């Protein structure tokens, strides 16, 4: 009979376990219902089962497949590389079914793209451009532009490849046209194309058409232009050929009376810039945008047509400052953001210090930006490019945080950069020593002294031993002490994460619960009709002592229901470390309450707090603490 009971029990247990396991089985759905995405692991009921997965070669619809396994284990949803043989593009993480479907199927390969010969990258040089791409792509691009390619497999990085891109050697192509000696600034190859029949064209490498020695009809002009694909402002000659980079000193204008000694050479040979642009220089000063056309996109300027009130000394084009305007940035750093700068959006508010109570002390990072960690708050990265600021939200629920740094001193020459980085808070709570807690390569946590989130089997906070490791108070260890007291400590998230606590079935409650601390406070109380007797004394309703008086350094608040028989224990035995802190009147200190709440808030969207728009939540912290003493009660 006993045996039968056992078998019955095992059977019931097996069915229970199987039912749980089967409920959790994930299917590989070729497609999810409602025209959903392809190849996803999901519960069976979310898989599409109809004929909605493409067409076969006869044009008949294909039924979608689903099997109770991971997609990686299926033939149709295995991930691999999809090779687009037309464009020469290799796309990773593509399921076979997706790659090989549709009107223009790709070629699917289970290997990683780095192992596929067609996907190997090289440097594709076409004309004056360069692209680090596949050979097929290079050929495809060359056919679009009608240019010959130079594909170099020896170049193995994109930076090297782009550095190889550059203009071919240019010069002056002199030819006769309608009884005149004309000239075109071009490459040698293009010049040779003008050599046809009776026409002869001579190429003078490195020369400008305006060179007097060439005797052409072209001469210096004060007109300027922007050139497609280049940042700088260029002079034009009288034939419309692009000459050297604009420098007002070399203008042929009759008003330019102080021409440099090498003026003739400037208009004769192709030169690098003769001036250095300084966007902050005053109008008319050397190097100012009005006088110098040496714009540089990476330094924050590019060639643009001039506007009223922003005109160059000569011509109609000017180096335009690509910086942005932002009041908050200016207030903080004393200048406006520059082109290419990125920084984090800040919310205005006071910082609160974790450890305002002397009992809890932290290092210099023990500072929580109250406003940036409130429910609903989120980090943003701001990006300044081409006179425009774009806002990039980091991941919600503070699963990403925006961090920023600067290269050099701000504002003098410094440059701010920011990024949304993953908030690695998940395993903070389980760290038991300061070294592991503060390992920034593995996690974003901080170590605080004074309270322990980790508890032992008896629900007592862990304390530090002399090796700096958190251990149970009941362990046979040498404990760290401070002013004669044992030291509790915790590892908490540096940037508290957000929780969707308003949704059902989330883990917000569990996460917040990790910071719950039960502190027992012993009271002397008169007997009441709802109270009971324990430990030889009379006790009131939990949290509402009728005539309560806290005992110094003791944390025993006896509930009516006292399963642990706490009330019978000696106060000192029950309260070995500081849990609740009292003032002289045995009132729980406000600073202690604040710190406890701050610990809660550091765990995530927990505790009593305002939200990101400063609206208070429904949770009232003060209701959780007994704040009245017996004296007050009597009063």
């Amino acid at each position, binding site marked *: 009979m006993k045996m039968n009971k056992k078998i019955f029990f095992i059977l019931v247990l097996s069915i229970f376990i199987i039912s749980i396991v089967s409920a959790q089985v994930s299917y590989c759905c070729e497609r*999810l219902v409602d*025209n*959903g*995405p*392809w190849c*996803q*692991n999901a519960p069976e009921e979310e898989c599409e089962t109809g004929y909605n997965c493409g067409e076969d070669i006869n044009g008949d619809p294909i039924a979608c497949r689903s099997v109770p396994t991971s*997609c990686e284990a299926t033939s149709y949803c295995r*991930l691999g590389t*999809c090779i*687009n043989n*037309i*464009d020469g*593009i290799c*796309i*990773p*993480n*593509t*399921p076979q079914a*997706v*790659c090989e479907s*549709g*009107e*223009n*199927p*790709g070629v699917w390969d289970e290997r990683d793209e780095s192992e596929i010969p067609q996907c190997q990258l090289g440097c594709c040089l076409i004309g004056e451009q360069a692209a680090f791409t596949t050979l097929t792509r290079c050929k495809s*691009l060359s056919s*679009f*532009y009608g240019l010959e390619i130079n594909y170099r497999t020896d170049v193995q990085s994109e930076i090297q490849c*782009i550095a190889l891109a550059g203009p071919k050697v240019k010069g002056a192509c002199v030819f006769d046209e309608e009884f005149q000696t004309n000239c075109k600034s071009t490459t040698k190859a293009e010049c040779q194309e003008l050599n046809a029949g009776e026409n002869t064209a001579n190429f003078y490498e490195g020369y400008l058409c305006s060179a007097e020695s060439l005797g052409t009809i072209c001469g210096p002009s004060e007109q300027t232009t922007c050139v497609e694909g280049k*940042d700088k402002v260029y002079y034009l000659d009288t034939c419309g050929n692009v000459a050297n980079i604009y420098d007002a000193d070399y203008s042929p204008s009759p008003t330019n009376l102080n021409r440099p000694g090498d003026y003739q050479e400037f208009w004769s040979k192709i030169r690098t810039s003769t001036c250095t642009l300084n966007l902050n220089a005053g109008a008319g000063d050397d190097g100012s945008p009005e006088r110098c056309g040496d714009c540089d*996109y*990476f330094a924050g300027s*590019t060639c643009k047509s001039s506007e009223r009130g922003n005109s160059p000394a000569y011509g109609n084009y000017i180096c335009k400052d690509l910086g942005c305007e932002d009041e908050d940035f200016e207030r903080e750093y004393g200048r406006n953001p520059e082109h*290419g700068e990125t920084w984090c959006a800040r919310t205005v508010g006071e910082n609160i210090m974790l450890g305002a109570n002397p009992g809890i002390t932290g290092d210099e990072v023990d500072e929580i930006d109250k406003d940036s960690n409130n429910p609903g708050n989120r980090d943003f990265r701001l*990006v300044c*490019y*081409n006179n*425009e600021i*774009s806002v*990039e*939200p*980091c*991941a*919600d*629920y503070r*699963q*990403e945080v925006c961090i920023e740094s600067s290269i050099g001193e701000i504002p003098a020459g410094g440059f701010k950069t920011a990024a*949304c980085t*993953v908030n690695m808070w*998940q395993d903070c709570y389980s760290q038991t020593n300061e070294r592991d807690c503060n390992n920034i390569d593995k996690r974003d946590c901080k170590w605080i002294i004074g309270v322990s989130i980790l508890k032992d089997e008896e629900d007592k906070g862990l304390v530090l031993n002399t090796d700096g490791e958190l251990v149970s108070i009941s362990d046979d260890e040498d404990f760290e002490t401070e002013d004669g007291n044992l030291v509790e400590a915790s590892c908490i998230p540096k940037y508290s*994460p*957000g*929780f*969707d606590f308003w949704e059902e079935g*989330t*883990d*917000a409650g569990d*996460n917040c619960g990790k910071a719950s601390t039960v502190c027992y406070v012993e009271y002397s109380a008169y007997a009441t009709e709802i109270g009971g007797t324990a430990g030889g004394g009379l006790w009131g309703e939990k949290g509402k002592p009728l005539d309560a008086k806290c005992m110094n350094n003791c944390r025993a608040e006896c509930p009516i229901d006292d399963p642990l028989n706490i009330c019978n224990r000696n106060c000192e035995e029950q309260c070995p470390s500081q849990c609740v802190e009292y003032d002289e009147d045995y009132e729980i200190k406000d600073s202690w309450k604040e710190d406890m709440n701050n610990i809660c808030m550091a765990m*995530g969207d927990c505790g009593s707090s305002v939200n990101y728009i400063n609206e208070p939540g429904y949770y009232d912290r003060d209701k959780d603490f007994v704040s009245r003493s017996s004296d007050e009660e009597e009063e």
Partner: protein
Amino acid sequence: MKRVIKNKKEKKKKLFFHSNFFPKNRRGQITIFIIIAVVIVVFGVLIYLFYPQIQEGLGLAEKNPQAFIQNCIEEKIEESITKLSLQGGSLSPEHYIMYNNSEIEYLCYTNEYYKTCVVQQPMLKQHIESEIRDEIDEEVDMCFNSMEESFQKRGYEVNLRRGAKNIELLPKRVVATFNYSLTLTKGETEKYNSFVIVLNNNLFELISIANSILVWEAKYGDAETTTYMNYYHDLKVEKKKQTDGTTIYILTDRNNKNKFQFASRSVAWPSGYGI
């Protein structure tokens, strides 16, 4: 005599302005002006609606078949390009996220947390080309019918042989090629073997960038916007992360405001531990 004539003119002028046509009272004048305005508007609407027929009736219809087709279909192609560019390359997205009233197709997606996405549209360029081709299919036939009719009305003998329609995205342009053969005979014979429409558009470049971002999303779950803006000086790349872990990328050519936007959900983070 002269005086008389002048008086007559003045009289005529007076008669005109004092006639019932322009009533003396203010309200009446306003009514007249309103009527005139309505007539002008109606006239304008009629011209707009029946412009091709009016053109034809007045003998102003396009005499060059190539230009006729270009005028007829250009707007539809532009419209399709604009629409699908805002919807991740699909005219009727199947799996999408709503953003600023646009249904933006996911080009890469995972329904799980912490995992990189699965590419949903690996042949993006070809997909877009076929989307445009399918969208303009009927319109192209209508345009060719209309052209046939137009030339027939003008006394031409028209022989139109329909062929393949092809859309190609190329650098800085979109090329629509209709391999239709047209023979027009009116005394002499003119023959056209194909019709090519070229539209200036940077969709090719934007798709190339989108493909590159897609590779980053599929491999690492994220892409850095400033890298692209450093390489391509006229490109604006915006990244908008949504609460559910979706990232919307908006690519804009700063010169002509051509735009391409698409969605991806890769390495999404849950709230809490997500269990």
